[in-house]
């Protein structure tokens, strides 16, 4: 690595840094978890009712035509993930945050999405600086004189860029999905040319997911009451296997009943369609503006090279 710029830090400082970083991450995730626990236990809600419903807020996201909304936000997401530079990825993250605030939806669900992404990003942040191959011109931080552990700042930059892009897209999911009921969003998707069957299947499994979640919860309660304790012995795996088997038997049987019921109510392979609004100029204009913003980001990204 003759051309690489390197600077050295004593080993104990680096170790301390890592420990601090891990502690901070653990504390943050714990705090978030407490936050969610507190919120979900407050409202003792019926888990068989899907939560992915529209919030009742009023914002331009709520009144935006759903087709334009899908095209603009999904198109923007694809543009964002093709960015290469950290500064522009943060620019995209800023756009997403502004969108989230403008959509005026509860922050908790966006936070849940961020924690789901954060685990993956944290993994990359730890692994990539150590494993990225060294190119000429990279800035390295060498620990101790023996050079057995080298931090490549280019890897850190890469991981941060990925993290910012992932979070930018994750934050857009709430304005996309949380501002209209799911059936309307899926209907918009089918009017854009996606097969109707797809929307139907998503709707159906989305609905039954909560039914089975409740069923699994009931079975777990039954197991606990009979003295089952979670641990990782072989006999315990057998119990888990039976648990899963029972869940599938019940689901296959329920499937047949659900389908019979659907047929009895006249199901012909189509659901009744929700009423649709007519497309206004402003809807289209907003979508075009949004996509233009994304294109500008990508152009700037390419010019920076």
């Amino acid at each position, binding site marked *: 690595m003759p051309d690489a710029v390197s600077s050295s830090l004593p080993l104990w400082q680096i170790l301390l840094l890592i420990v601090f970083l891990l502690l901070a991450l653990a504390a943050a995730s714990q705090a978030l978890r407490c936050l969610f626990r507190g919120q979900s236990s407050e409202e003792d809600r019926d888990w068989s009712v899907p939560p992915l419903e529209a919030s009742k807020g009023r914002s331009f996201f709520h009144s935006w035509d759903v087709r334009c909304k899908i095209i603009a936000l999904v198109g923007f997401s694809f543009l964002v993930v093709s960015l290469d530079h950290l500064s522009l990825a943060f620019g995209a993250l800023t756009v997403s945050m502004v969108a989230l605030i403008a959509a005026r939806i509860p922050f908790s669900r966006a936070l849940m999405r961020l924690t789901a992404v954060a685990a993956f990003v944290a993994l990359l942040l730890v692994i990539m600086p150590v494993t990225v191959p060294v190119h000429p011109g990279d800035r390295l931080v060498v620990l101790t004189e023996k050079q057995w552990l080298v931090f490549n700042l280019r890897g850190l930059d890469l991981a941060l860029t990925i993290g910012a892009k992932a979070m930018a897209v994750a934050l857009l999911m709430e304005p996309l999905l949380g501002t209209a009921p799911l059936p309307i969003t899926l209907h918009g998707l089918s009017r854009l040319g996606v097969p109707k069957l797809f929307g139907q299947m998503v709707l159906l499994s989305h609905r039954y997911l909560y039914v089975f979640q409740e069923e699994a919860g009931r079975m777990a309660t039954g197991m606990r009451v009979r003295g089952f304790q979670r641990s990782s012995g072989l006999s315990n795996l057998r119990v888990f296997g039976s648990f*899963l088997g029972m869940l599938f038997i019940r689901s*296959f049987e329920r499937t047949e009943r659900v389908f019979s019921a659907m047929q009895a109510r006249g199901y012909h392979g189509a659901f009744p369609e929700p009423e649709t609004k007519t497309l206004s100029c402003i809807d289209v204009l907003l979508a075009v503006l949004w996509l233009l913003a994304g294109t500008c980001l990508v152009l700037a990204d390419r010019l920076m090279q």
Partner: protein
Amino acid sequence: MHIADGVLPLSVTLGGYLAAGLVAALKVRKVRQEELPKLAVVTSAFFVAGLIHIPLGPTSVHLLLPGLAGVLLGSSAFLGIGLGLVLQSLLLQFGGLTVVGANTIMMGLPALACGWIFHRFKKTGRWRQMLLGGLMGGLGVVLAALGLALLLVSGGEDFWGVAQIALLAHLPVIIIEGLITAMTVGFLARVKPELLLTPHHFRSESPHA
């Protein structure tokens, strides 16, 4: 393990969507149209099963289940897994919206392979099915992990290290998943063997309608 947004190059994410769409279109033709709602309902059971955490020493792992999906759904497994991943992305942000296609290829093709092998060699006999089921449970994760590593490597040599570590991290999951799938298949063979009988559950006339 699902890939998040922003890791893969744009060409791979778009190619993933294209490939997944093609395979799904092929598979939809094989399934009778009116059976698709049933597949959707069963998929939600797989979704819930994927949320269960199995304790493993100090931590816990959650199940991926491509092997079991292949065993139970046969050639519809690809559709079920694609649908499940769409839902995971929409509801839980497990795997990003832009990589749903690539993730579906990564998990769906192993499921198809496992389903085919299981129904080709299962014959009868509870122990044989249990053993084969366990092998398929492990194989499903092996193939999915290899797919994950391949996809990561498509991002360039910078991702070699990440791919290697991702492969290593799947080793305990392979064992756990194999054992659990064996137990589940053994349980089904004892309690409701007809679920293992029909490889194309959603194509044939349903045995217990």
